[in-house]
């Protein structure tokens, strides 16, 4: 087992564990924190995968901004504790777990066997994924989507205002 693989495995375990933590913790705040952990782990992975800028964005935008927003929401709405099980549609929980497990098996089988070997991760050359390269691409080939995201954010802002204004 190569060292790469080992690192990957450890990170994967952390990520999956944190994700499960988010899934199962009764306390919403814990869930938020677990999710932050997942995101940070992913950021580390992105670094390894030659995507430093993405990793940075992941930490700042995702783990930072978005998750803070979540925390705020949790605070506003109050850290309600809701039993996962029970409720009016208690049957959904076991069914959903069963189906997701089935799906998991299928997907893992699919990605492991059905799609064949996808090729190794190439070792990133220098500058790959650097802000400069990214920026170049973003403002040339991906200018349009970039502009669209700006509109999108504007709309989201307006929408949030419309929704919450008294």
């Amino acid at each position, binding site marked *: 087992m190569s060292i790469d693989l080992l690192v990957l495995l450890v990170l994967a375990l952390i990520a999956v564990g944190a*994700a499960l933590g988010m899934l199962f913790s009764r306390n919403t705040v814990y869930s938020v924190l677990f999710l932050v952990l997942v995101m940070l782990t992913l950021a580390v992975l992105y670094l390894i995968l030659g995507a430093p800028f993405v990793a940075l964005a992941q930490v700042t935008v995702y783990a930072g901004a978005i998750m803070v927003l979540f925390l705020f929401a949790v605070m506003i709405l109050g850290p309600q504790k809701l039993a996962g099980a029970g409720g009016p549609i208690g049957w959904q929980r076991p069914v959903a777990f069963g189906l997701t497990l089935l799906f998991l098996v299928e997907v893992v089988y699919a990605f492991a066997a059905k799609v064949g070997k996808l090729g190794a991760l190439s070792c990133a050359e220098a500058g790959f994924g650097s802000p400069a390269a990214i920026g170049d691409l973003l403002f040339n080939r991906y200018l349009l989507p*970039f502009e669209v995201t700006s509109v999108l954010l504007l709309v989201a802002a307006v929408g949030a205002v419309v929704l919450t204004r008294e």
Partner: protein
Amino acid sequence: MVLTNYLLALSAVLFIIGVAGVLVRRNALVIYMAIELMLNAANLAFVAFAAEFGALDGQIAVFFVMTVAAAEVAVGLAILVTIFRTRKSVDIDTLHRLKG
């Protein structure tokens, strides 16, 4: 040697945990988070493919997904807050007036 398959599998597992979160949790906030997790899983896949192909398009996609996620969260939380004002609950199962 690290195959893309492994990362893909990891991303799939995270994605599915996200799906499960949407399906089994009653707290609307946690469901939002689960959706975020799903998007993150997609991002991981994008980055992994970018690394496999040595092409940056995958990484660019991640930015767009992040932006979208941010926009969605903003609107989603706004909706949730609005509802919370009248209902005082984030339990998604209390919302079933519209049915049939």
